């Protein structure tokens, strides 16, 4: 029996010929990413070394990435102090893949890593963030872990006791209709699988629609795979991956794709044709509460958010700017735009998207997680309704448990911002 992509990656990383779902391994880690929660990782890392007489040393500082994104610039003295502590640690341990709060190279970890060329096909990537699944878009096995587990990786250089996950194959065919794209596909898939449908499993994406999809789109579907419970989403590397790594990420060294065997053992296969797919929307308070947007059209919205590691890239901002150009955000609606990285922001400026958005009444903020997790800017008032291109709508997610969050694509968000209510973008904003 052949191996899936993830089985192959794990076999290589643990020095084995062949592995299968259910095996327990300790794979070498190629990249270990954290954000502000590195403050807790540092704490646990020092704890591991306590009373051992050994000097705390990160196994390989070139493989550790720390990106400030969740609360930038700091929203409180507590966060600022955590960030200060992390900077000191970064300097002491000579961690080079560090992205501070900066207008030239800052941004959300899940955008900074790919665009900086830190992730390669075949890598084992761990991150203290559940959306680490994003990096499967580049053919890596990338999964989220907790802070203590990261401290263990910093110490040992491998992940302990990893159970090889079973893989669900998702075959996607058909052309996206106008105003429908990767976000609608992944929302539809999560609705179909449910929030726990892929728990402890990997989702491996295949099919002509995926082959034609940009890396930006692949980042969207891998990012949200975790919302179906998946350990990881992955698109086996192909020509598009190579193009992205060369042109966008400036990678010069050899790129070695890892591909699944043709007789790989999948737990099951799900097929989707996107030819007839309508724009999708996830209704409060679970991500798998997915419907065609028409079902809730007309619902008044007080805030629209475009951004996040899911949909804060250049093509997302371009889509929103295209819809808002020459129009105006509805009077009773606030629209906030958070580019996913400094690079995305700069390009959006150069191409005039920021001007289009600002003239229409949107507020364009600094790159970062923004209101996505409810700690920083853009909090919601009691009972307010938000429409957002982010990835989670759990109760309290945007900081207010009495508010409602709907999730959608940038096209739906922009068209709805103009109308002041949830709107099908195909109807013309």
């Amino acid at each position: 029996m052949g191996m899936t992509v993830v089985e192959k990656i794990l076999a290589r990383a643990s020095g084995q010929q062949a592995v299968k779902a259910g095996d327990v391994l300790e794979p070498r880690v190629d990249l270990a990413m954290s954000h502000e929660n590195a403050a807790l990782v540092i704490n646990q890392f020092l704890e591991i070394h306590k009373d051992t007489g050994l000097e705390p040393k990160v196994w390989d500082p070139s493989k550790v990435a720390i990106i400030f994104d969740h609360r930038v610039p700091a929203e409180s003295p507590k966060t600022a102090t955590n960030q200060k502590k992390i900077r000191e640690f970064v300097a002491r341990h000579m961690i080079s893949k560090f992205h501070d709060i900066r207008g030239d190279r800052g941004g959300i970890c899940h955008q900074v890593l790919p665009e900086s060329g830190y992730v390669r096909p075949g890598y084992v990537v761990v991150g203290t963030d559940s959306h680490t699944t994003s990096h499967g878009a580049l053919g890596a096995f990338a999964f989220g872990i907790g802070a203590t587990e990261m401290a263990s990786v910093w110490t040992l250089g491998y992940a302990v006791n990893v159970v090889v996950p079973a893989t669900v194959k998702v075959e996607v065919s058909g052309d996206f209709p106008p105003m429908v794209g990767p976000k609608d596909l992944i929302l539809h898939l999560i609705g179909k699988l449910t929030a726990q449908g892929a728990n402890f499993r990997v989702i491996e994406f295949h099919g002509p629609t995926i082959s034609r999809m940009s890396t930006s789109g692949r980042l969207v579907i891998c990012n949200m795979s975790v919302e179906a419970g998946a350990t990881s989403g992955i698109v086996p590397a192909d020509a598009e991956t190579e193009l992205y790594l060369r042109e966008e990420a400036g990678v010069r060294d050899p790129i070695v794709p890892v591909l699944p065997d043709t007789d790989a053992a999948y737990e099951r296969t799900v097929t989707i044709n996107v030819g007839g797919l309508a724009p999708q929307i996830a209704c409060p308070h679970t991500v798998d509460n997915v419907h065609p947007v028409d079902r809730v059209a007309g619902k008044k919205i007080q805030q629209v958010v475009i951004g996040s590691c899911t949909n804060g890239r250049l093509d997302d901002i371009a889509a929103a700017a295209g819809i808002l150009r020459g129009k105006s955000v509805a009077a009773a609606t606030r629209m906030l735009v958070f580019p996913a990285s400094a690079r995305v922001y700069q390009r959006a400026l150069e191409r005039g998207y920021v001007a289009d958005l600002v003239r229409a009444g949107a507020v364009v903020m600094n790159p970062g997680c923004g209101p996505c997790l409810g700690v920083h800017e853009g909090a919601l008032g009691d009972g307010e309704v938000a429409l957002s291109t982010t990835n989670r709508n759990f109760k309290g997610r945007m900081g207010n448990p009495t508010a409602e969050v709907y999730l959608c694509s940038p096209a739906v968000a922009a068209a709805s911002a103009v109308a002041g209510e949830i709107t099908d973008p195909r109807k013309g904003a």
Partner: protein
Amino acid sequence: MAKVVYSIGDDISTDVIYPGRYMATVLPTETPQYAFADDSAFNGQLKSKQIPPGSIISAGANFGCGSSREQAVSTLKGHELIIVARSVARIFMQNAINLGLRLIVAPEWEASVGDEVEVSEDQVTNRTTNRSFAIERLPRARQAIVDAGGLIAYTRKRLVEGSTVTSPSRGR
């Protein structure tokens, strides 16, 4: 015998267990005050120590889904709560094992607030309804971390043995 003090449904996210706005608080000694912070009644009971250690939170499927924040585990562990759920999301389960939060997965589990519960090696019994539910065993590899007393101790042992990726003896 332990009492069910709180009962919640399916897909309870870490945003509910430990809201994102308290994420700047990281130390396990400080996180317990924010357990279920958006439910002021239950949070109040916890903070005023009305809930005895060893009490049970009864949950449905996919408990702890969402963010990887470890505070969602340390906040519950701080009150020495026991979680009995029908199923648990992956990262939450790993964090619970790593930090030593008592977590029992019983796929058929049913209970209400006030029920008296008894836990044995392989089943959890609701004494109030007189029903027993089979417990799903942890994978052996994970049990090793529990037996070591958590991941800190487990990794420390490996470190002291020189079992790191950079050590030649390991041959990785």
